[in-house]
């Protein structure tokens, strides 16, 4: 069973007071819970948040399912997101994703056996001028070549 840490609980409670409505704290709370639950959110997490925030679980679940940044399944320690939208696609974003998947012999949206890496293709990350690019956890890596990307990922 997932439980928020004391710090996390305090954060969620402060967020609930920060905005005009309690519901606005759902997204920050989900971010917080995702961090504490190894990067993804399970049904347990939502049930717990619903208790802590005194909000209907369906409302939290709706928000969780709607946004792409909340991971629906376990991710690796380094979650790699490769942009495959138009500008990146024109500059080899899709090939970059394929290369990374092949190099680390892992399927898309799955975690490597050592649990270190997971790769997914995503839509535009707002870095079209420096395509192709990838996001590893919170950081952007831009103007990549397949080789450079693998190098970066290996160094992490």
């Amino acid at each position, binding site marked *: 069973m997932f439980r928020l840490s004391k710090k996390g609980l305090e954060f969620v409670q402060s967020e609930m007071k920060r905005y*005009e*409505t309690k*519901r606005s704290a759902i997204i920050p709370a989900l971010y917080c819970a995702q961090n504490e639950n190894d990067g993804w959110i399970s049904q347990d997490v939502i049930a717990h948040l619903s208790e802590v925030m005194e909000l209907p679980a369906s409302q939290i679940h*709706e928000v969780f399912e*709607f946004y792409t940044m909340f991971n629906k399944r376990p991710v690796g320690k380094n979650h790699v997101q490769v942009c495959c939208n138009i500008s990146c*696609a024109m500059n080899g974003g899709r090939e970059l994703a394929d290369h990374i998947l092949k190099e680390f012999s892992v399927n898309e949206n799955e975690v490597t056996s050592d649990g270190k890496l997971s790769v997914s293709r995503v839509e*535009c990350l707002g870095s079209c*001028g420096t*395509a192709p690019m990838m*996001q590893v956890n919170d950081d952007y890596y831009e103007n990549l070549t397949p080789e450079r990307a693998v190098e970066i990922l290996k160094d992490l």
Partner: protein
Amino acid sequence: MEVKLLSEHYHHDDFREISGYQKRGGYEALKMALKKKPQEIIDEVKNSGLRGRGGAGFPTGIKWGFLPKNGEPRYLLCNADEGEPGTFKDRVILERAPHQLIEGMIISAFAIGSHKSYIYIRGEYVKSRKILEKAIKEAYAQGFLGENILGSGFKHDLDVYSGAGAYICGEETALISSLEGKKGQPTLKPPFPAIEGYLQKPTIINNVESLASVTLISRIGSQAYRKYGTEKSPGTKLFSVSGNVCKPGTYEVPLGYPLMDLINVECGGLRTGRSLKAVIPGGSSAPVLTAEEAQKAFLTYESMAELKTMLGSGAVIVIDDSNCMVDLLHVLTHFYHHESCGQCTPCREGTGWLNKLCGTLMSGQGRLQDIELMDQVARNMMGRTICALSDAAAGPVISFVSKFRSEFEFFVREGRSKIKGGPHAQMHH
């Protein structure tokens, strides 16, 4: 010629800190503005002819005028949910000149009489958010935010709210829903946000660049601002150029600048040996221009409207002749299918249908009537939904199919791309 009004100091690394910002005349405009009457600021912005930089191009001053004229609490929201493929200009402002945005927001809030504002930033911009939060803290420390700003008696609070990955949250009402902690789904209009927005209170939502431009206009005055640009599209604008150009990036040029000059002069033209095939002038939602049309295009709202496309967010995507248009359209249909919020039936089902149709074409199993069907489906998605995502998804399909029909037909007949060869069963996702 690049004209750096807004982005004059963006190359200074310390411009993002309050000391560096103030050293270069930062917050002077705020000090001046607080001495004026709010209506004077609104008039100044109206006179400047500033048009919303988010995509729709609606005049900012007029938008502010829609607010009810009573003392009811109201909100100012900054739309920093920059999700339109091809657009990355707001990120530049957020990361290089956060104070410019904050200053613009305080001035705007003062003008419309709002005491609370939020910057809704897309979730992926973690770095931008950190910079912004630091800047806000600095602004509070210097007394530009909080109670009694600079002794004027005006009170304003500014907070950042982070989205979590949904393109649709860039739409005004969806942004409000998301900020209220709901799914980011657009709501029906009427009521318009200016009457009933965030928490059913009057709300103004402006793009990052629009609000940063308010700082600029307040500083140099509407007359000076109007020196640039055209009658109907005054001022300068940041353009994000991406795709097959030598120097992609964000460039500030006055409106009315020829599109081809932006590509050839500022961005260093196409790579050697390549020729221009098409340009998407205003982010992925804008109908595509062929190379010939691009020659005639000027970077103004009206010139783009004449060519039946739009300036949008100023995201110029340059496509050279190495690209297969069917493939690129599939990328776009996939994107809109992925991002449709699922409320309105024509969009929910239509985006999926278009993506499936495009997918069958790509797999080499398309039929000629599928091309016609795509056009039909797209046309019947237009203007049928709550928000503009449906139109945004349909626009590229209609323009791609009508302007590059031969490429689509070749794909159906030969089962392979005219440009890239080989049946691409799975080229995207």
